[in-house]
């Protein structure tokens, strides 16, 4: 255990390589076990769709109304 520790902590490069190796190993193992795909939690917030969609319509409508009023 102590030899491993002194080997890893020998200098900044041995430490960096060790940390990155553990990092990659954990990610690849987890990926292989869970069959990782790009995964995104769906979240729904009706407001944004509503805001964007309705805003365009609303502006068009009100422009048409104004044009009609002027005629």
């Amino acid at each position: 255990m102590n030899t491993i520790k002194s080997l890893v902590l020998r200098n900044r490069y041995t430490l960096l390589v060790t940390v990155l190796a553990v990092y990659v190993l954990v990610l690849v193992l987890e990926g292989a076990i869970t069959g990782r795909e790009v995964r995104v939690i769906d979240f729904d917030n009706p407001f944004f769709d509503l805001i964007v969609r309705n805003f365009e319509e609303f502006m068009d409508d009100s422009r048409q109304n104004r044009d009609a009023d002027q005629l």
Partner: protein
Amino acid sequence: MDKFSLLQYRALIRREILEHRNLFILAPTFLAPILFMAMVWIANQLDPDDLGSMISYLAMLFNGLSPVEMAPIFMLGGIPFIIVLFSCAIVYLLVTLYQDRKDSSVLFWQSMPVSNLKTVLTKIVTVGAIAPFFYMAVLFGFYLVTVIWLSILGVSHDIEIAGIGYMFMAAVVSLLLLYISAIVATLWLLPSVGWLLLFSAFARRTPLMWAAGVFIMIGFLEDFLFGTQFLANWVESRANPNQYLIMSFGDVFDRIFNYDMLFGIVVGAILIAGAVLMRRFID
């Protein structure tokens, strides 16, 4: 852990704020008036009739909504602040364990009875909870002025957008949601936080080049060695803001207690442990 040991965090965090006040305080303080003036300028450039339509649209949108329901709409106004906060957070994390080694003040910091673990944890708390707090404080002022301005605009067009008290409450709720989002985002992006800190502690110069370069290299290496792209997939999953933007209080639990979040925290902890150990190589 005794009381003094916990109290040390106060002095440590105060140091971070003083050292990086440009990133945490000046940046949002400059952004707020510029953003507000831009809004006023755009409103003035618009055709008065179009502006009137927009105001009535807002009024219609807000009609019958409670402040909590209104809050997400206000969060849109916070987006520029979030972008600046994100950029400043990246700069901070890259610089924070690098700068003091470069100007050799690290010898002073390290001559104080503060462990490397405590130093690194302070940085994470600062970027995840303290910096967002300052941004939210500035954003609060920004919302306040904006709500008053909207009300005045409404009055000048003979439209009541919403009760000014209602809008104000909605603004406060949106600040709360944004603050919680910032904390959830820090947890969700803990691997990125750890990565930046690791290279901030490692690099003798240009920490950004190291952090970015090694990241890309490892991606290629995985593909080359194992023929897999788990790393790339994982990064793509992480990058989506939907994962940490909290739009309603009910989301908080689900966002924190799910497998991906917890796995990310484990990976982040590996990199953060690396940064803590790396801190012993200061010369």
